[in-house]
């Protein structure tokens, strides 16, 4: 980090700017490379998540593990992003360091700082100029099209526009504060409104999720809003793929009502997430090949990569004395 850095002394920052001007192409390449690497790591992270899920799903699994893991996973990422937004709110409020220093040095110089703009060529000019009509050149022109420095005819104009720019950017900090609050509230609130399932926080919601684990059919009774992607969706998906076969279903509620004899939900009902049909089609808790939009990336990976693992719940072996887990290969192929 160089141009946007707030670390180090002003002298160090000035040297960093000199380095950038001496080799702007290298700076750009280095940072874009790091950005792409981090994107690749971000893509690889769900694989690690799948690894975590895998260790928590199984016949002897404790459902609270999955519930806690899903909830914490949903909370951790927004908290980091809230911290990011808060940091940027402070940074934007202070203004870019380059402009701050330019104004400060200009004020220290007094009237001597104002003069006609003198053009001095640097490596940056050479780099941008040499790119010609290439894609890179057009990219540079596009990114700097609103740069106030390009409008300034003299140094005095440039400083005045920098002052206005810093002042204008202060308003952006309120935007970042709003983003920060939004991210911070995400574990509990969704799409701008309190989520019905998570409205009362984890304390009240987790027992409901536990019930959802015991019976996916019962979980459909939770009044989840359409399109809500929260911990419970994850949890219910996890139940379908892991816990359903392992935990015996309750046939009666505490008040004596039957969980199974519930009214049929219309398929056009926006609250119908297709879980009924999913459970009917894959009744033994196998990973489903259906990519329903409510499931997490990890569970999609789970479903896509570990399908054969569950085959022993579907097929029986006819060969006497055979102890293999995957017994009827022909049936599996037909399946």
């Amino acid at each position, binding site marked *: 980090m160089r141009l946007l850095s707030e670390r180090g002394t002003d002298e160090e920052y000035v040297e960093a700017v000199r380095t950038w001007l001496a080799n702007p192409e290298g700076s750009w390449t280095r940072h874009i490379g790091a950005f792409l690497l981090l994107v690749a790591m971000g893509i690889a992270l769900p694989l690690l998540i799948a690894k975590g899920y895998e260790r928590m799903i199984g016949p002897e699994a404790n459902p609270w593990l999955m519930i806690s893991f899903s909830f914490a996973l949903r909370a951790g990422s927004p908290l980091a992003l809230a911290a990011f937004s808060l940091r940027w709110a402070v940074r934007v409020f202070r203004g870019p360091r380059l402009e701050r220093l330019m104004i400060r040095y200009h004020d220290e110089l007094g009237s001597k700082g104002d003069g006609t703009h003198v053009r001095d060529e640097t490596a940056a000019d050479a780099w941008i100029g040499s790119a010609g009509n290439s894609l890179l050149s057009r990219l*540079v022109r596009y990114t700097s099209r609103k740069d106030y420095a390009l409008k300034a005819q003299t140094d005095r104009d440039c400083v005045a526009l920098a002052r206005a720019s810093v002042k204008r950017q202060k308003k952006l900090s309120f935007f970042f504060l709003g983003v920060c609050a939004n991210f911070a509230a995400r574990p509990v609130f969704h799409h701008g409104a309190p989520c019905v399932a998570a409205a009362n926080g984890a304390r009240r919601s987790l027992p409901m999720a536990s019930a959802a684990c015991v019976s996916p059919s019962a979980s459909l009774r939770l009044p989840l809003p359409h399109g809500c992607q929260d911990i419970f969706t994850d949890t219910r998906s996890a139940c379908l793929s892991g816990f359903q076969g392992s935990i015996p279903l309750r046939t009666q509620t505490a008040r004596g009502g039957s969980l199974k004899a519930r009214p049929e939900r219309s398929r056009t009902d926006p609250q119908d997430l297709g879980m009924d049909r999913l459970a009917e089609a894959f009744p033994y808790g196998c990973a489903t090949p259906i990519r329903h939009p409510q499931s997490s990336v990890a569970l999609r990976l789970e479903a896509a990569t570990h399908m054969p693992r569950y085959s022993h719940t579907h097929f029986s072996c006819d060969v006497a004395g055979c102890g293999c887990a995957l017994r009827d290969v022909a049936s599996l192929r037909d399946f």
Partner: protein
Amino acid sequence: MLPVAVALCVMWLRFVTSDTLRRSASTPWGALAAGLALGFVQGLMLWFGLEYFLEARESLRHPKAARLMLRYHDAVARQAQNNRS
């Protein structure tokens, strides 16, 4: 930042392969901590990625303002040196 991100990923891998997330664990605290840590690492990835992207974008900025800042800085430094001598 990058080494920190890599170290966090390695820590996470070691964590999931330890006994903390064993299926028969009676308390969910390990899973809670693991989920929170992983979520935070995910957020940090986004954080660092965004910062590098913004820095790369800043690198594409026209050098005019930076040159002016350097010229003022050098003038201030020269003035201070003259005053001292």
